[in-house]
């Protein structure tokens, strides 16, 4: 930007309410600063969930297509049994988070923080479980490039796991640091939306794996 218009910008800016009053003087209708409404953060999260869902749908469609090739080199893999336990842990974490949010709305703050903490721990346990599942895969000689089925297994679990990691970061962030622009209710709502989505997403991915095995 050239200096002249920057100067002008600053000059006009400094004027505070200075500005253009319109051709019709007092006929123009003005109101106060609306700020950023809290529901915007919920809207943003719903949209983000839509984008993430589309990302996983692309992977699922690739999975379906790659698996369905005639004369395919696809070999089904034996799923690590720990995935069942991980699934139970993740679904449980959704329930504890729902309980935490419910407590917050009901005004039971200590209760809410308690269940929030339990959710975070369950989330971390889920990730540890997923890593153990990977270890079982390695032990069975199934690596990323071993077979298309194992390739997809690692892609799905890694992509989902990274999203869960982000969710844990959000849980910790909201627990320890109250956001500047969001109320605690909004922050809880937004994190819960994301977390429940990841649980549901895992159920779908797991169901695909089961279908396969």
């Amino acid at each position, binding site marked *: *930007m*050239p200096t*002249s*218009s*920057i100067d*002008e*910008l600053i000059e*006009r*800016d400094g*004027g*505070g*309410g*200075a*500005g*253009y009053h*319109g*051709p*019709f*003087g007092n*006929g*123009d*209708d*003005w*109101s*106060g*600063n*609306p*700020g*950023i*409404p*809290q*529901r*915007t953060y919920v*809207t*943003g999260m719903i*949209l*983000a969930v*839509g*984008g*993430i869902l*589309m*990302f*996983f749908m*692309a*992977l699922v*469609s*690739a999975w379906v*297509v*790659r698996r369905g*090739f005639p004369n*395919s*080199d696809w070999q089904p893999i034996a799923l690590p049994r720990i995935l069942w336990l991980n699934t139970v842990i993740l679904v449980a974490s959704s329930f504890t988070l729902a309980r935490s949010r419910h407590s917050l709305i009901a005004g039971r703050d200590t209760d809410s923080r308690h269940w929030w903490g339990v959710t975070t721990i369950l989330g971390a346990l889920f990730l540890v479980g997923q890593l153990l599942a990977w270890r079982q895969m390695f032990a069975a000689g199934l690596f*990323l*490039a071993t077979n*298309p089925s194992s*390739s997809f297994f690692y*892609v799905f679990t890694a*992509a989902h796991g990274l999203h869960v990691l982000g969710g844990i970061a959000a849980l910790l962030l909201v627990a320890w640091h109250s956001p*500047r*622009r969001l109320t605690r209710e909004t922050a809880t709502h937004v994190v819960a939306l994301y977390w429940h989505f990841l649980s549901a997403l895992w159920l779908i991915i797991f169901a695909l794996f089961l279908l396969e095995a």
Partner: protein
Amino acid sequence: MSSNPQVADSVTHAPNSLLRRYVFSTDHKIIGLQYFFLALAAVTIGVILSLLMRFHLVWPAAHLPFIAGGIMTPEQYLALVTMHGTIMVFFVLTTAPQSAFGNYFLPLQIGAPDMAFPRLNMFSFWLTFLAFVVMLSAFFVPGGAPISGWTAYPPLSGLGEVTGPGEGIGQSLWVASILIFCVASLLGSINFLSTTIDMRAPGMTLTRMPLTVWAWFVTAILSLLAFSVLFAGGILLVLDRVAATSFFLPAGLVVSGEVQTHGGGSPLLWQHLFWFFGHPEVYIAILPGMGVVSHILANFSRKPVFGYRAMAFALCAIGFLGFLVWGHHMFVSGMNPYSGLTFSLLTVSIGVPSAVKTFNWLGTLWGGKIQFHSPMLFAIGFVSFFVTGGLSGIFLAQPAIDTELHATYYVVGHFHIVMGVAAIFGIFAATYYWFPKMFGRRMNESLGKFHFWLTFAGVYCIFMPMHFVGIAGGIRRYADATGATYLAALQPLHQFMTIAAFVTAAAQLIFFYNFFRSLKKGEAASANPWNATTLEWITASPPPSDNFGGRFPRVHRGPYEYSVPGATQDFLPQHLAPEALGSANKEPNNAN
């Protein structure tokens, strides 16, 4: 709406440090300008690459001092093709119409203080900038820029250096850049959608939104759904390149005498994922232009947009259908003829909402008091290119004809006119139209008109002959066509196109001169120099940091109330209260 005083405060005052204010700014207007100048740099590089290609096509044996070895190799030519396409599609056609103008004018037009997530907005820009730097760095690594085209088809793009120079590090940088760009676009689209859904001023109902806002909204939906798919495809491509997986790489490949270890994958899978993004991408480039053109045609015809609701609906219909036609890029991939027929029918059906738009643009012009300012000329030019390029698209939508023309210059002519130049004319129209608002000064009208006529004629001279070259069998992507007799016969046409390209590119210097000179020396602009109705024109030029100077408009009427019967003013701003219409009849226009 909750009004948190802390929040209101933070959006009212601009930060004091220069770095926070102009570099790492969270102000949507500054971010919009950053995107604009990024696109300006990108389009300059993209045009230079295309001139090198045109030069080489006509004088393939010419010595070029800046090329290693002096004479351009076919691989270097393909690197130019790849980088020209990539830079133009991602960093110009996606960045300028949506990210630049959308960022600057969406909050202003809906009466909001900023985007919904200002810091996320800043992050999106810097990610885009990083993606651009990573993309350009591909020129400077061993092997140079990738040669697999902007579509990066495997196996060429998936095997690494063995498939050619630039397919090693260069192609890796290309994929990395695209992945970063995807994230930036996804975050940007979430911001655009949230802002449009939740930040509209009181009274700004959906049917009072300017068509530009509708266009940015639909484009953001397309970005959200398309870039996430490209991101998924890009991840799988990276794994094929670095982790020896076989998503896209078939078994039994022998490249340069080497047997490849990959097995069982399918290049067609990439094509499906890529074009599921790639076709909506065409509309990501052109829809904002459609919005801008509708906006400008109404303004300078002094008439409401003809069939406003049909226009908004047509934008949505084009966006929706855009997701169902990706297969028409793959007619020659050996797909089932019934699939081809389905994609063909869906493709030609886009002609219906497109015709609605064109008819309504003409309807808006019809009987208007037309003012031929520079933005108006470019808007009309957009309509011309959209119709021309759209008509050749109907031919290509037939699988039987596409099979013949797919690998020829016909396709190059088609998509450059409809996606490239039409969208660029939308960008030019927007630049001439909003320059006074963005910089508080006006661009020179005579230079603007001169620029328009040279560019308009020049572009047709470049791209119309390509259709004839293509029908005659001129094959695209060939670095040197002088070898084959039937292709050598087309060389005079190529010479004409190359000369036209250089003249048209030179004409852009007029634009650059006009633009940068007007920044400093242009005539000072009033708040509403075009006597327009929408909310960006009711604030100062350029707008203050909080957009409306500590207050926010309430909206009472539609976006295009021009020449309303009974009113003495021929335009009624959107925030004009109904009871004020009486005074509007008495007071003369004293804009600023």
